[in-house]
């Protein structure tokens, strides 16, 4: 297979051993990815030579830091196919999604002037989410609905773990926001984004995309997808923790009221009131996570050098191996599509009669790191009639030999608890 990449040696952590000398098989990339040496070096170099607070100070290193910070914004914008000013730094995707939801809330409270009135919600309005959402793209909308009187509705999940697009009629003339995932962190299913965007546009609703799982695994062009807002996290795409980004269509960011307020995002402050900077600075209150943005810059450079199409083909191959392997373990049920089409190499499964915590423990004993629990998606699990599952998720550095070790390990789990 010439689809395959061999990149594990770029990732220092992957060479360590666990549980008494066993080689690490890291299959928890869906939770957080490991970082290549270039990302670690970029952060270290920044801290050793350019560290300063950005957008203030008249000294040379402040200028260097600001340049590095804005160069990172530019690189990330290009990576997801949007313009420089449409990327807002946040600490993670959760904060980015809360930023949008609070923008709507603040507009409803009549902050942001007349241009923000397009975001005001009333009790006749509806917000549509999906049953497959990570809690980060569900709870902020539940809260927004509760605070504004808008009604929360959702697109259900099919038996094979995809969004049921036959039920798109939950998006109606009353719908103001449609918030949905690009790829499920449980089922791995990739959403037909253009179809949802088309329906949302028909009724004039804003679209908010959770691109956390997709950004590091697929070529993502947010302008081409046509969504209004999108969120992703650095640490899931080979970058550092503590940095994420919000994409917002330029004219929408210009009209959206701020979420966090304080230093760095203001123009004129008097004791009575304050005027705010234009975006993206309007949404970047307080001292920023500069070194982390520089790390994320190195991460998207790394991903671009590999090539997202090549990476996606590599992971497609791994998804096939995982699905074939899991299908061969007696009794195990995959929560999600069982074929690799339109699917990430994220495979959650149920071992009947064995709790995921116990599955994870036996795998861990063999050096295999997987996620157990509800993966911050309780409603998705409820839809499958389980409370928790075990999830193996691959990344750019995962090898077929590691998938083989995981499948062998899973056979051992079943034997142990038989």
């Amino acid at each position, binding site marked *: 297979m010439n689809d395959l990449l061999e990149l594990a040696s770029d990732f220092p952590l992957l060479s360590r051993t666990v549980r008494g000398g066993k080689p690490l098989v890291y299959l928890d990339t869906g939770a957080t990815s490991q970082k290549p040496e270039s990302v670690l070096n970029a952060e270290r170099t920044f801290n050793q030579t350019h560290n300063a607070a950005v957008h203030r100070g008249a000294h040379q290193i402040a200028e260097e830091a600001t340049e590095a910070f804005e160069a990172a914004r530019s690189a990330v914008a290009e990576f997801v196919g949007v313009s420089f000013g449409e990327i807002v730094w946040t600490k993670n995707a959760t904060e980015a999604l809360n930023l949008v939801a609070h923008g709507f809330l603040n507009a409803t409270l009549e902050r942001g002037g007349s241009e923000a009135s397009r975001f005001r919600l009333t009790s006749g309005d509806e917000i549509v989410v999906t049953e497959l959402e990570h809690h980060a793209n569900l709870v902020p909308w539940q809260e927004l609905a509760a605070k504004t009187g808008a009604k929360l509705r959702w697109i259900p999940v099919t038996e094979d773990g995809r969004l049921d697009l036959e039920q798109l009629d939950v998006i109606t003339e009353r719908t103001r926001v449609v918030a949905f995932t690009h790829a499920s962190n449980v089922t791995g299913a990739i959403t037909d984004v253009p179809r949802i965007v088309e329906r949302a546009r028909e009724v004039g609703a804003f679209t908010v995309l959770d691109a956390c799982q997709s950004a590091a695994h697929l070529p993502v062009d947010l302008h081409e997808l046509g969504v209004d807002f999108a969120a992703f996290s650095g640490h899931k795409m080979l970058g550092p923790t503590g940095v994420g980004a919000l994409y917002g269509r330029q004219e929408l960011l210009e009209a959206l009221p701020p979420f966090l307020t304080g230093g760095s995002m203001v123009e004129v402050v008097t004791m009575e009131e304050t005027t705010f900077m234009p975006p993206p600075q309007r949404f970047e209150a307080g001292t920023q996570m500069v070194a982390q943005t520089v790390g994320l810059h190195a991460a998207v450079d790394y991903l671009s050098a590999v090539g997202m199409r090549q990476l996606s083909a590599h992971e497609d191959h791994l998804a096939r191996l995982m699905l074939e392997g899991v299908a061969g373990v007696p009794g195990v049920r995959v929560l999600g599509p069982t074929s690799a089409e339109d699917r990430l190499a994220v495979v959650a499964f149920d071992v009947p009669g*064995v*709790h*995921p*915590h*116990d599955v994870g*423990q*036996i795998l861990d*004993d063999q050096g295999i790191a997987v996620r*157990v*629990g*509800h993966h911050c998606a*309780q409603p998705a*699990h409820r839809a499958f009639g389980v*409370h*928790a599952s075990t999830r193996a998720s691959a990344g750019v550095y995962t090898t077929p030999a590691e998938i083989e070790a995981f499948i062998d390990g899973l056979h051992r789990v079943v034997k*142990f*608890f038989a």
Partner: protein
Amino acid sequence: MQQLYQQVILDHSKSRSGEGELSSPHGESFQVNPTCGDECTVQVAVEDNRLSHFAWSGRGCSISQASLSLMYEMVDGEPLDRAEHLGETFRELIHNRGQELNPEKMEQLEDLSAFTGVGRYSARVKCALLGWMALRDALVQAQRTTSGPGQAPETQA
């Protein structure tokens, strides 16, 4: 792995004792482990400073289920101070990073000593203690509510 999954734990996780519901408990506690969504409800009735009736229900991993099942066998019908003391000793064991306690304490713990290895895995500490947290909470409630006369609750398995 055999050190963690002792036979007594595997046996109790499959064939569990004390699952059920009391019709009118004096104390009841629901506990949840937010990391994995495991949960349990423990119900108690007390009479003459004894834990006269005990029942539990819940779902979870083998460690949490075996812990609840063994807890039932160890505390049902026992004097309250003994049940509380046993809980304290068990908590001490689970927080002892996989090392045994002194021989006297290990003897008091009887079959619960099978959980010694759990302490080695910090992610599993909560699994072993979930039921015992519920018991402690339910007993506090029961002691509050039983200042007056109560009816003897019955177990419905």
